[in-house]
């Protein structure tokens, strides 16, 4: 009665996609790099590789927020705002109160956004999409007010963040110093911590998790707070990379962060996927973006493409998982 009897080719593909999403993903990444090399011979270099990594890392970190929330069947569209606010607060408060307190305040602000999200989603049961969009709107308003009343002192981007964001060591970006431990922690936690397992459990079957004694609201509250904290840290890194404190710093990363997680094989319905795939997804998107830029595809075309990718991958996932 096990489903081993005559799998169709599509079902077999589905099983590969579900079991080992990394294999086809890395294949796709290599293919894209190859196409890029053909389109623009001589582009591939150690410098190019380092640069691609550097651009991909903040995206991959924000995509961690989407991965973790999507594992439970949620989403967090306030990450761009949380990152922007953390960056802006750090840059403007550092000259006033010093770098460490500024960073503390910045991360605290991000955590507040997460707590509000968590409250709405865990307690009031608002759909995560609507809730995170709403807090993003309010938080942006707060940022505008802050900007009008508090600025006048100038901007200071902490040296450490500049080193982290733009520096290179042996051709590789220094941001790896932050990213490698971060990625290792997330990948460890998703499989080997009780919290990580519960994310999968809630996404796979919330009713079953509840029947097994999981108080789902506790997980949601913690998750969305954690997600905003990660976004805040990413904002700091991004500040070092972009080197300007703008009011829309990380906002353009919202959509790609969702796309990276979806491409990386994390199901938007929850219960499947993981951060490993998301990292490759972020690399794929970064390479894809530089290809689109090379082909002079405008921003509009890029958005259409990303939207269609999300839709197509999701629809494909539904077909594949229904069959197996």
């Amino acid at each position, binding site marked *: 009665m096990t489903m081993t009897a005559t799998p169709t080719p599509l079902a077999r593909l589905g099983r590969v996609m579900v079991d080992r999403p990394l294999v086809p993903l890395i294949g796709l990444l290599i293919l894209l790099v190859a196409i890029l090399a053909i389109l623009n011979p001589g582009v591939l270099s150690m410098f190019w590789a380092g640069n691609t990594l550097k651009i991909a890392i903040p995206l991959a970190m924000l995509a961690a927020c989407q991965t973790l929330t999507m594992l439970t069947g949620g989403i967090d569209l306030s990450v761009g705002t949380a990152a922007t606010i953390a960056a802006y607060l750090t840059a403007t408060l550092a000259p006033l109160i010093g770098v460490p307190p500024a960073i503390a305040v910045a991360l605290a602000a991000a955590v507040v956004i997460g707590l509000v999200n968590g409250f709405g989603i865990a307690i009031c049961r608002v759909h995560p999409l*609507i809730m995170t969009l709403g807090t993003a709107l309010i938080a942006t308003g707060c940022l505008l007010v802050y900007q*009008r009343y508090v600025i006048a002192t100038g901007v200071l981007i902490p040296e450490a963040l500049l080193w982290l964001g733009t520096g290179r060591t042996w051709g590789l970006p220094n941001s790896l110093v932050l990213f490698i431990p971060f990625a290792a922690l997330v990948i460890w936690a998703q499989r080997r911590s009780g919290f990580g397992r519960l994310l999968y459990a809630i996404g796979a079957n919330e009713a079953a998790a509840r029947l097994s004694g999981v108080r789902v609201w506790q997980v949601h509250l913690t998750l969305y707070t954690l997600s905003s904290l990660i976004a805040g840290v990413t904002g700091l890194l991004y500040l070092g990379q972009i080197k300007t404190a703008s009011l829309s710093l990380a906002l353009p990363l919202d959509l790609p962060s969702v796309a990276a997680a979806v491409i990386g094989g994390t199901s938007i319905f929850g219960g499947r996927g993981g951060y490993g795939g998301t990292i490759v997804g972020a690399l794929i998107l970064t390479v894809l973006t530089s290809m689109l830029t090379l082909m002079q595809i405008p921003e*509009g075309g890029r*958005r259409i493409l990303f939207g269609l990718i999300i*839709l197509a991958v999701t629809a494909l996932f539904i077909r594949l998982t229904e069959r197996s």
Partner: protein
Amino acid sequence: MRRWIEANTWTLGLAVLLAVLLLATKLIQPGFGASGLDSLARAALPFALATVGMAIVVIAGGIDLSIAAMMAVASVTGAVLMDGASDGQSLLIVVGVLLLGLLMGAVNGALIVLSRVPDIVVTLAMLFVWQGVALLILNAPGGGAAPWLRAMVAGGLLGMDWLPRGIVFLAVVTAAIWLPIRRSRLGLRLYAIGSDPLAAFRSGVPVGQTRIIAYALCGLFAALGGLSVTMGTGIGEPIPGPYLLASVAAVVLGGVVLGGGRGGLLGPILAVFILRTVRMDLTLLSVDPNVAAIVEGTIMVAVVMFGAVVATRGRKP
């Protein structure tokens, strides 16, 4: 009559609240009159049309996150084509843009029905697609609008200066599209699939087809909303405004239950005017507009939270 009052308590309450707010406005600024009302109506018009579109989809048991992006597509399409067009041409263009709206909505609905991907995911993806389309058509605000169109929503009605044309436009358009539907079998079907899709199926309602129609209607009102942006400002706006959250909040505040089947269009429209009036009053009280935006956002999020709690309670009797 008593039954009507009982069934519409919420809407009546909203009407009273709006009247109180307008009265408060008059107290804050004694000079508030026809021109104030006119600017209120003009500011509220795109929000109201978006809300009507959203309300129809929510009544039918869905949600459309791409509504603001569809408005942007309609706005820029209209503005680009109308730039320099004659009056006759621009009439055709308006009709074309409305058809485009119907088409965009129908595409959303068809993708939901055919792909079996949940509405919230499909319309999120389409939000990005329609945003991209709007940017491809026009990547910075620009274009133009026919003068007669602009005149339709500016100033008071001839002979009745106190009645802003924006409100008349809203009322006429909404009534012309919604009332015939509401009275027909289609109206019942929209409520039926939102209320209980299984019972609707068993009563012989073509559920998928009705769902596509609901999204198409939402697209039509999004197109009207997009045109009203262009009518109000005279240019096309490729970056969508905060219409998505505002429309969801107004729909909930207007008494339409998230999850479907209940509520009408009058409540949500009143809710839009309430939210806009609050914002206007804050401005009149010389509150920083950004602070006003925060207050407004907080009200909207609180309303949505409240609505979600009510919807969750309703699900488990």
